[in-house]
């Protein structure tokens, strides 16, 4: 058995062991809406469907208008973005399975919503790939262990971990990480000048707005009923996500260990200057601070206090 197969077998066994810890009670299987706002998000997902191949005016995209250096920078930026989107395929799928395993015949609003999300993530991934290809070629490998580590976390396994309350998972991945990701996309959109890139970012941001709203709405429907231990797990998980993952450079290249930042950081700066769908480090810094404030404030409403974060460059945030 090759090393790759052995590793895949280990991974599958880990998922299998987690799955076996749940007892699914499928019946009675209820379909009527329980949280109308979540069902509405599902309805919106059906109504706002789009196709990366036909709803982005690719024929108007003129990469040759940009210098070779700029194209090289932008292809790197969109490649790195694809790596950041890819985990959504497995994470949202694992979360869907978790809901099915855990909530039995209930929670259909979330399940229907999550049945759509992997396809939306795949469309976003396709957009990133198409842009990178048109700008000179998609780069499949960071080629740097630090960046590979920072952009590769086993969060899909965490979604199926019965020891981790699903609310804690959604708070960390949905309310924090997805919110930051959305805000960054909106920043990229704000600074993008190329019409084709703007269309791509607008379509992606529209879906991601729904994903973030799902997380906050679901938490709003569940957090008030959580016991002390689950509430503590939410706070602990969000704190971990922020301090070890987000501040470790999961979404922001300028937060990566210094040795792993280049050539990606330079590429993003150049992509941002050319209006091809990125933000400068300074712009991203503002987005991150605003997101942290936004998240902290929303959690405070539920009396969930997040710890202050200390970072050598950012200070206490």
């Amino acid at each position, binding site marked *: 058995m090759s090393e*790759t*197969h052995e*590793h*895949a*077998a280990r991974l*599958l*066994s880990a*998922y*299998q062991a987690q*799955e076996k810890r749940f007892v699914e009670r*499928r*019946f*009675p*299987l209820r*379909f009527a809406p329980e949280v109308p706002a979540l069902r509405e998000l599902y*309805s919106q997902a*059906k*109504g706002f469907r789009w*196709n990366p191949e*036909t709803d982005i005016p690719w024929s108007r995209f003129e990469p040759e208008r940009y210098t070779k250096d700029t194209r090289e920078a932008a292809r790197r930026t969109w490649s790195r973005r*694809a*790596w950041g989107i*890819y985990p959504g*395929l*497995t994470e949202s*799928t*694992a979360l*869907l*399975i978790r809901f*099915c395993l855990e909530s039995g*015949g209930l929670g259909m609003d979330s*399940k*229907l919503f999550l*049945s*759509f999300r*992997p*396809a939306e*993530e*795949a*469309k976003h*991934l*396709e957009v990133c*790939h198409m842009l990178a290809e048109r700008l000179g070629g*998609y780069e*499949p490998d960071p080629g740097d262990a630090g960046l590979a580590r920072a952009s*590769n*976390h*086993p*969060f*899909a396994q*965490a979604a199926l971990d019965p020891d*981790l309350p699903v609310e*804690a*998972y959604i708070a960390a991945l949905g309310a924090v990480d997805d919110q930051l990701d959305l805000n960054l996309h909106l920043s990229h959109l704000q600074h993008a000048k190329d019409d084709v890139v703007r269309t791509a970012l607008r379509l992606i941001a529209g879906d991601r707005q729904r994903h973030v709203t799902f997380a906050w709405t679901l938490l709003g429907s569940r957090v008030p009923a959580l016991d002390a231990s689950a509430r503590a*797990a939410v706070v602990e*998980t969000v704190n*971990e*996500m922020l301090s*070890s*993952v987000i501040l470790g450079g999961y979404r922001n290249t300028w937060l990566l260990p210094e040795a792993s930042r280049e050539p990606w950081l330079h590429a993003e700066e150049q992509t941002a200057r050319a209006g091809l769908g990125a933000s400068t480090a300074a712009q991203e810094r503002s987005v991150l601070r605003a997101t942290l404030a936004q998240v902290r404030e929303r959690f405070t409403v539920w009396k969930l206090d997040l710890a202050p974060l200390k970072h050598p460059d950012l200070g206490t945030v």
Partner: protein
Amino acid sequence: MLVDKERSEAYVPEQRYPLALSSAMPDVWELWRRAKTLEWDPQVDIPWEELHPERYSADQLLAAQMYWSRRTWGEYGAISESPALLLRFCLERRLPDLQFFFTMRTMEEGRHAEASWLMAERLGRYFPQPQNPPTAGAVGTHGVRRMAFDPETSLEGVFASLVCAAEEILIDVFKATVHKATNPAVRRLMELILRDEVRHIAFGWQCLDAWAPSFTPETVRSMEAAVVTMIENVEFRGYRNLWLAIEGGSATPAEIDADRISCEAGLGGNTPEDEMAVFPEFLKKLRKRMAPWGVRIPMFDHPRLGQV
């Protein structure tokens, strides 16, 4: 908890790079492309105003409600269970075509579940569970999630049994009976489901065709075993049609007869005569399709179908 478990490797580290995204299976990629152009919404793309439940008798409505409720439970399995296959594709770092297409399949199955539930509701009532609890075991699960997460179960076996065989009989019956659905709303829904399912089954066969050159004798045996299990433990337990259940003791007569009554009313479903015509043909087709790979599907004895 999240990061602690990652650091301690309680969560097995994933190897994601190099992350290939370019198509390597053009036929499968074409299915992904087509799926994106053929999205539909059960709420708006079915002519619900033409359903007219008031035109049917109470018995016909009850049968159709039961039929569409059971379809809902079956489609739900594709939300609850089949997505595990997408995880397996990603964890085993299978070609991107498989991963992209399967995201759409999950979405489509969710749509089918919602549409089937809506149909039952609009015919008067959705039943959230079988009338007798033991039937839940037969109609509740086909076990694909467990198989998908089991490294000892070959992916080829899962494809042969559940992505190909189970989907093939489903669409064969749909194809053979869609003309009997005289109700325009029901017929449109069946056509839309059929259109999606044709892609799902094409996906299964295209993958197996592509993998066939690498099948080992062990792979072939696992495919044979998986197909036999699917026929005997899923189809012949009544997962799709309770009339086929060899030991259908826990299903009520009304549930068993629901497909026929609904079908005869033009509200979807099929009759025992349909099953007797379609099922043997399906098995013949399956044997013929898999024979070039060395897969031998045995004959089955069924109390009502005979030896098939």
